[in-house]
């Protein structure tokens, strides 16, 4: 057992192992992100057909590769801060940081709403399976959110093993489903030759599918960010993030392969629980039950993480005075951001109650997309204000500005994809963020302690 010696630095391990432990390569894809394999991604099939969905999956993988490269350079340099929120404060300014904070809160709160919606839907399916039709899922939605919010409010000490068991079961269920469909024996269970079609809407459908291709990976950039107090993240951070993306790419391809071989694309494109539905089609009770449990566990684990992250982002904004400082309070006994947790509950519940999973996750995708759009701008400003050699960088990503340009181009394309099917939601979100920005600029900014925003010991930026 460790004992703390006076002033001693933590024992040195290989830099790579600090980011990637033996189980971390696969594990980087679980937690918040894995739920994207169980639901949501399949809406891309409705847009571009099964093949269009697969193309979108891989192209959006390129988007996230650029995210990983760019984010790693800034994260490795903005030491002891962690994440795009702190980066925006230092590189762009308070208004951008305010927006980034909102992106985080909205992306995770909408994901939480989507997870709760899935829990309600699963309870309804369970009830129908036991002969009780017309079960109202709303109480289960409220129960799921309320219970998880209560756990976060109380700061309930969820032991590592219990959490690990839950997320491991979710991950294993995908592998079991894949093996259970006997992919080595085409035609035994999977029928790709009968179910796969061409591109039903042509290449414009493939573009439209980009929107939900985001869902495979949304959150991976946050999963790998864990700044330390006194040390910059190691150079292996981008490798860790890339490993996570590759893991997700493999999991996404497996998911697609199984689902596309069991369900016709017209059904797959509108299912709420595609993997569970695929398991039911196999006729195997074991697979059906296992995937029911896996879907439920992944949704619950994801929702728990979302409440945790969204509340902390809102809390940070309260502490920084971007939001009323009332939100920056910490529970005197439980040491949790309890007001932020409570405030976000009705937002999640109200979106869950719509019952429209595709629209709820569209709001989450849009918020995430806005965050990714900020990254190339952030990168460009970072290199301009603090050129190479002016400050110490833990990692310098190659081929700049190519990754930034590719990321920006893919983001713009994905906005177009959202416009193709969810133009009203796109407009609503843009109006929301513009209104929020105006509120911040003209009302809230006077409360912000401007001198406290910049805490890094960097030289004056070029041109200032």
């Amino acid at each position, binding site marked *: 057992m460790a004992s703390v010696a006076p*002033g001693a*630095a933590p024992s040195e391990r290989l830099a790579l192992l600090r980011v990637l432990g033996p189980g971390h390569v696969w594990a980087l894809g679980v937690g918040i992100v894995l739920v994207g394999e169980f639901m949501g991604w399949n809406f891309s099939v409705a847009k571009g057909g099964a093949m269009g969905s697969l193309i979108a999956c891989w192209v959006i993988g390129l988007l996230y590769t650029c995210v990983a490269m760019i984010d790693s350079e800034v994260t490795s340099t903005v030491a002891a*801060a962690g994440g795009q929120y702190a980066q925006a404060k230092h590189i762009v300014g308070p208004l951008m940081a305010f927006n980034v904070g909102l992106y985080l809160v909205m992306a995770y709160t909408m994901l939480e709403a989507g997870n709760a919606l899935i829990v309600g839907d699963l309870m309804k399916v369970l009830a129908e399976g036991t002969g009780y039709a017309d079960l109202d899922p709303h109480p289960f939605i409220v129960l799921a959110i309320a219970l998880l919010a209560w756990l976060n409010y109380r700061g309930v*000490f969820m032991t590592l093993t*219990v959490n*690990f068991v839950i997320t491991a079961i979710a991950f294993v269920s995908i592998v079991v489903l894949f093996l259970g469909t006997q992919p080595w024996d085409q035609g035994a269970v999977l029928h790709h030759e009968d179910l796969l079609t061409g591109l039903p809407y042509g290449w414009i459908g493939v573009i439209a599918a980009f929107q939900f291709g985001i869902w495979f990976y949304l959150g991976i950039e946050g999963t790998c960010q864990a700044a330390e107090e006194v040390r910059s993240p190691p150079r292996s951070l981008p490798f860790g993030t890339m490993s996570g993306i590759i893991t997700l790419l493999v999991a996404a391809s497996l998911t697609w392969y199984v689902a596309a071989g069991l369900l016709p694309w017209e059904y797959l494109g509108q299912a709420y629980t595609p993997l569970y539905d695929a398991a039911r089609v196999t006729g195997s009770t074991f697979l059906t*039950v296992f995937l029911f449990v896996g879907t439920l566990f992944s949704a619950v684990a994801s929702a728990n993480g979302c409440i945790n992250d969204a509340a*902390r982002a809102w*809390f940070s904004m309260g*502490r920084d005075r971007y939001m009323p400082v009332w939100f920056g309070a910490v529970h005197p006994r439980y040491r949790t951001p309890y007001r932020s947790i409570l405030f976000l509950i009705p937002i999640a519940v109200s979106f869950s109650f719509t019952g429209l999973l595709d629209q709820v996750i569209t709001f989450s995708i849009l918020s995430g997309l806005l965050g990714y759009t900020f990254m190339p701008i952030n990168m460009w400003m970072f290199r301009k204000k603090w050129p190479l050699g002016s400050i110490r960088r833990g990692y310098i990503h190659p081929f700049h500005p190519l990754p930034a340009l590719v990321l920006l181009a893919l983001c713009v394309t994905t906005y177009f994809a959202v416009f193709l099917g969810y133009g009203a939601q796109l407009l609503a979100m843009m109006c929301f963020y513009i209104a929020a920005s105006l509120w911040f600029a003209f009302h809230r900014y006077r409360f912000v302690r401007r001198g406290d925003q910049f805490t890094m010991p960097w030289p004056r930026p070029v041109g200032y």
Partner: protein
Amino acid sequence: MLAATTLGLAGATGLAWLWRCQHQRAGERRERLFDRCRGLVASPSLVSRRPDYPVLRGRWRGCQAELRPVLDGLAVRKLPALWLQVSLLAPTGAPGTLDALSRPLGGEFWSPSSELEIRLATPSGLPETVQVRADHPRAASLLPALARQRAFLTRADAKEVLITPKGVRLVVLLAEADRGPYLLLRQGHFAVDRLDPDLARTLLDGAFGLREEVLSLAQHAAA
């Protein structure tokens, strides 16, 4: 259906039992943090706050002393930190409150820094990342005492120096959460088991020295 329900209930019960056992073990492990330090202070008293870490109180060179671990997992995208607050609670004669916080993020809820309205220039010789705040302009007279804390504030684990009329406090980073469990599950899992008495002694002596400096300044100002 009955088999599935039974299996589900058995699984849920098993998870609940597993959680309860581990929760209890974790609480017991936290309670042992000060096992090697109890003899360090006079009239030691251990305040249990299960499942949180306990607080050790006692007397150090005539002053009421307190060693309080604070678990901080509220920063976004940052590993949870376990801070150790070492306080000497005895009048200092300070004319106000002066706080020096290293690498401030804004989310340090356990520090009074954010409530102190006056920002002062960081004394030369101290790291640039130290932010100095006070509640009153008179507290600026304590800056010489702060400047002499250079050896402490340049430590990698040093976080805060706090001077108030009622006492002084030094805060250090005791441990950071393991990266793996945090990346996976946003869990704060700390490897620290028992506090090294040498570290506690160093910090208590440091706090005592700081208080002596402040007392000296106060007496000089009164003279």
